[in-house]
């Protein structure tokens, strides 16, 4: 400050001295010279100490440029923002660089809010941004497959439903290729780019399908891997009690026997005459060894009080009970089922034709199924199966440690008739998996979409867990307790199928290469960043003082000085001319 005052005094003194001498030397253009000298002194002062101006500024807010930011977004930044650019951002040199978001936040200690511009925060920076992000100005997604809805693991023989979205190519042709490179399914994406394809998991092992999107003229848009780890299922103990044989039972029993389930079934043909598989005795021991019982309303009506009680007691102990309505319910059955939580009333409507194309991922089979004309009231039941139009076809609820379900889709067997055996089996398998007794051990949770050099997290792993890379290197995992679960992290260095070895289990999981499925990764970053955006609190729009640039003042001083020099020179030339 003292220096500033000294400089000011010096400058003022010099300017006044110059003005005084100009006033006294008696030569022409006196006023002009004085004015110009004073102006030059002022310009020099502003050059040394530029004046400040007030500009709009959001105090405490940091604008973070993330990879994928477009030139237009950079150009649209306000002047008064504090901007940092993360690595991988193509932005002007003037913008401050930061190695990561946490570092940038340390540098800008006053920043309590973060505004993200560009493709989105990489996984590394998301924790640092938690709770601070107030806005996300997303860059447009790259062209390609940006959403993939495919199972990461499946059971053998199950139908796989692979959906997704292609960005930037509406109506693109999307093809699914099997490991042999043959096209197994192909469809056209709709106007939004959404598509659904189907395949089948054949045998246990890793299955690498490929999804290829191309435009109508054949130019490739994107091609990504669809890794599916196919696992063996477990044996299911199934008890079927039916009042009469029907088509559904024919295909259901066939599937159950082929799939290796232990089938006990009793399908009544007449009074005391039945088609029997296995034991089908309703005693406590048998029921305790059974995972799920499938009973239709006629078999229920024929059940005595003791077997009924045994069945319900077994349900309390964990047995799954699926009630199948194949016709109008007799009053006593309806009251029994109402006591189980399903209040079934015959509705006035005719049996409605419903489709399951979307639910099952069938491209355009247009199979019509018949839904029993029931009005089912079950306040605490969860849906088990819904038709494409949203109408409920099956529901389940908890009873004791077991579950009770009600199924009133009449003819799921049409799937088997239409050659969709895999879908038929998957439908029943998924249904029983929900209803049946809980028996399987807990399985470790594998990372969702692992990528080379990105942190992959496993939870629920045992003590001696290790990861085997495709190259055969085994890395033991260092698990830590996290909210009652043992979790561990791993940074994959190789792309391909890795194996998590946990006790005697070997679970395959896939790691994508860094440059594979780029559009998918960009969309994932974008979604994750969008999820970070918190409530937009009161936007503080204050102003702050910003020094004006010195350059223009320097130029002005230079111009004024030059003008002075010209004036003085001209006067001197005049004077010498006069003198001679």
């Amino acid at each position, binding site marked *: 400050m003292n220096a500033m005052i000294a400089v000011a005094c010096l400058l003022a003194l010099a300017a006044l001295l110059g003005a005084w001498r100009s006033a006294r030397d008696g030569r022409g253009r006196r006023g002009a010279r004085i004015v110009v000298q004073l102006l030059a002194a002022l310009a020099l002062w502003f050059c040394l100490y530029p004046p400040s101006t007030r500009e709009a500024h959001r105090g405490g807010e940091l604008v973070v440029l993330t990879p994928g930011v477009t030139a237009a977004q950079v150009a649209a930044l306000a002047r008064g923002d504090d901007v940092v650019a993360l690595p991988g951002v193509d932005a002007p040199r003037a913008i401050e660089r930061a190695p990561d978001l946490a570092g940038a936040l340390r540098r800008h200690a006053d920043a309590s809010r973060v505004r993200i511009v560009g493709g989105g925060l990489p996984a590394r920076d998301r924790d640092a941004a938690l709770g601070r992000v107030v806005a996300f100005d997303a860059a447009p997604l790259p062209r390609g497959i940006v959403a993939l809805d495919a199972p990461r693991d499946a*059971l*053998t*023989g*199950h*139908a796989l439903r692979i959906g997704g979205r292609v960005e930037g190519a509406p109506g693109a042709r999307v093809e699914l290729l*099997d*490991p*042999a*490179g043959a096209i197994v399914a192909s469809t056209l994406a709709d106007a939004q780019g959404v598509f659904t394809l189907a395949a*089948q998991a*054949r*045998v*246990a*092992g890793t299955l690498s399908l490929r999804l290829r999107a191309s435009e109508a003229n054949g130019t490739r848009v994107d091609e990504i891997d669809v890794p599916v780890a196919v696992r063996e*299922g*477990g*044996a*299911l103990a199934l008890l079927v009690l039916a009042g009469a044989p029907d088509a559904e039972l024919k295909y259901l029993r066939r*599937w159950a*026997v*082929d*799939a*290796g*389930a232990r*089938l006990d079934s009793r399908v009544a043909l*007449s*009074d*005391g*005459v*039945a*088609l*029997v*598989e296995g034991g089908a005795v309703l005693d406590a021991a048998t029921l305790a060894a059974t*995972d799920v019982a499938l009973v239709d309303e006629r078999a229920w009506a024929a059940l005595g009080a003791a077997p009924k009680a045994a069945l319900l007691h077994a349900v*309390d102990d964990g047995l799954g009970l699926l009630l199948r309505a194949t*016709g*109008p319910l007799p009053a006593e059955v309806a009251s029994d089922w109402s006591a189980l939580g399903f209040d079934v009333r015959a509705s006035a409507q005719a*049996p409605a034709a419903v489709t399951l194309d979307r639910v099952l991922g069938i491209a355009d089979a247009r199979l019509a199924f*018949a839904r029993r004309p029931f009005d089912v009231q079950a306040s605490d039941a969860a849906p088990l199966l819904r038709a494409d139009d949203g109408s409920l076809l099956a529901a389940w609820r*908890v*009873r*004791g*440690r077991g579950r009770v379900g009600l199924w009133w889709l009449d*003819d799921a067997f049409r799937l088997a008739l239409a050659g969709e*055996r895999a879908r038929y*089996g*998957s439908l*029943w*398998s998924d249904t*029983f*998996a929900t209803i*049946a*007794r809980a*028996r*399987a*051990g*807990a*399985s470790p949770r594998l990372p969702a979409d692992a990528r080379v050099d990105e942190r992959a997290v496993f939870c629920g792993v045992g003590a001696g867990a290790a990861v085997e890379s495709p190259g*055969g290197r085994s890395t033991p995992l260092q698990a830590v307790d996290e909210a009652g679960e043992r979790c561990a992290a791993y940074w994959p260095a190789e792309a391909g*199928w890795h194996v998590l070895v946990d006790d005697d289990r070997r679970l395959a999981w896939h790691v994508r290469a860094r440059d594979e499925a780029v559009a998918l990764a960009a969309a994932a970053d974008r979604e994750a960043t969008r999820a970070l955006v918190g409530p937009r609190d009161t936007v503080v729009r204050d102003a702050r003082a910003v020094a004006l640039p010195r350059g223009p003042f320097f130029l002005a001083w230079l111009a004024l000085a030059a003008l002075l020099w010209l004036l003085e020179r001209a006067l001197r030339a005049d004077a010498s001319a006069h003198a001679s």
Partner: protein
Amino acid sequence: MSIDPRLDRLRRAAGTRRCLVAFGLALPPSLAGVVLLLRIAGARGALAFAVCAAIALGIVLLRVTRGVDTRWLARALDARAPAMDDSAALLFREPATLAPLAALQRARLLQRLDRLVLDLRPAWPRRAFAASLALALLVSAVAFLVPAPRRADDSPAAASAPGAGADATRLTAIELTVAPPAYTRLPERHETALDTKAPQDAVLRWRLRLAPQPAAVALALHDGRRVVLRHDGDDWRGEATLAASMLYRIVVDAAPPLADDRLHRIDAITDAAPEIRVLAPERTLTLAEAHQKTWPLAFEASDDYGIAHAELVVTHAQGSGENIAFTEQVIVLAGEPADAAKAVPDEARAPRVVLRYAHAIDLAALGFSKGDDVVARLVVDDEREPNANRTRSPSLILRWPADPSKDSAGLDGIVQKTMPAYFRSQRQIIIDTEALLADAAQLDEAKFLARSDAIGVDQKLLRLRYGQFLGEESEGHAEHAPEGAVGGADTQAGALAAAHEAQERAPTGAPAKFGDAGDVVAEYGHVHDIAEAATLLDPDTRATLKSALAEMWQAELHLRQGAPAQALPYEHRALDYIKQVQQATRIYLARVGLELPVPDEARRLGGERKDLGDRSGSLAPTLAGDAALVALWQALDGRGAADWDAAQRALGARGDTPDVLGALAALDRARREPDCVDCRRELRAALWPLLPPSPAATATRALPGAADRAYLDVLAAPETVR
């Protein structure tokens, strides 16, 4: 300015020496560099390096030569010769421009030059030469130590030669002669690869030369057969006939294994059966035209190698009913080559042979007459040996047009007349009536009455036919109606009427059996309609039809009386009613769904069930697919050991699937090269189509934890008092 020749000589000698030194220093490392690049980057890299080195050397030499100029010379003279008095530079200046004193000094220097013995050439830099040589040796040593990389563009033979080392047998010459069967008329061809495609039944002759020379050589085929090669000079020769596509490997005895012992594949191109296209007639069933003399037939037959024989089999069917006689004759046809072969010729295939056959069957000579059929068929054999492929064309039938009247049951191709035909008749009656009224002026009364009466008869016939739908009895016979006009008895109604009449006139004199009281109705009564026909008409339709009949009655009445003008309104009204009937004849059947009737519990299970019991254990799981293939697929997944033999056996048993050979070859390669990741991937790709589909497996949900169980128990517990 000219330099003194003595000085110039000195300068040039020095320049040459310096160039030689530079050249000598640069040459050994450059050569070593070329050798190194030849080793690691191939001939192209080495050539590029050599060119660069030569250019660089040239530039260096040029600079060295330039550096040896007069200034350098003056300095060198000053440095070496004290006699020059440090003023050698004067020697290179024009004497005329010099000051007098300098000119004097210059002259003195020139004089001294004669006495001067000087060698301005630099000494040979021995140490530098040694260093250069050492560097060159080092680089060469590196070049020979670095292993030569395998290059993708090298041919297998070339790659196996240097890369194999001494402990492998190398194939130094390969000749595979493919001699296609004689009938294919394909030339013998010689190949230098062990994989090829050849026509089926071709004779394959191998001539191999191996180094080092083994004791015995054989070809091991994928199906277990062996072709032993015999020793003939330096060569090993053997031959085999290609019955089907095969994989084989060269097996040597008493010698190191082959450097490249992949399975080789020879695909057999099967001889396809000839194809026949019928050019004429256009349809298989042709109706003979009146006075047709001949029946022209034309065919086009094509085959991949050649057609040996074509014959036309003509079958003549005479007679009707059960008394049909067949005569068959065979005409051998000669074909003419068609203009162009259509298929694009393959290298291993000859262009397709296309022949055309034409023949006209002389119907008169055949004795073709009313009611006969002639069936013609072309049978073509190709030239395959020993068993020719035979193709038959579809049967072409020439049929005498069926008699439109009479017997409707015997002939199939005649379409039954349908309802609209009747409606056209009513309209026809109206048209006829109007025509009669128009012609009335020119006609005398008798003729007018006769025509009116004829129309009345038509109207009656029409009324009768509709009456049959309502179960009316037909009255009398079609008086003077021409037989053809009735439309024949080939309609449902006509058949009904005929049956009705026959029944009415049936002799009732047959002695009735006693007690056959139930037959009274059959004996004395008769049905007026058949159930299906009558139920098709709902009551409204029947009423409308009745009204139409009433109008027809009136129309007929006036027509018969010779008053067509009065009949016309009735005719129109009848047509209107018939129109309504026509619209009502659309029949809708209710969709039959899965709505089963509710079982009547009171009546249910009331039957006799003695000796009936449970039936148990009728379900057996379907056989799973090839477990060995599944096991192999899973073993390839991880790094586990695979049961190769079992998988190979399973593959061998799958002879019917498309590319078993490819899978076998991939399996063999993956088995022999356990470290080859690509081989495993290829095998997986080849295995995938062969994997059996498995039924959807089942799973149960995970056991709930202690907290989850407690929560469920609390939920289930009876509610306590609040």
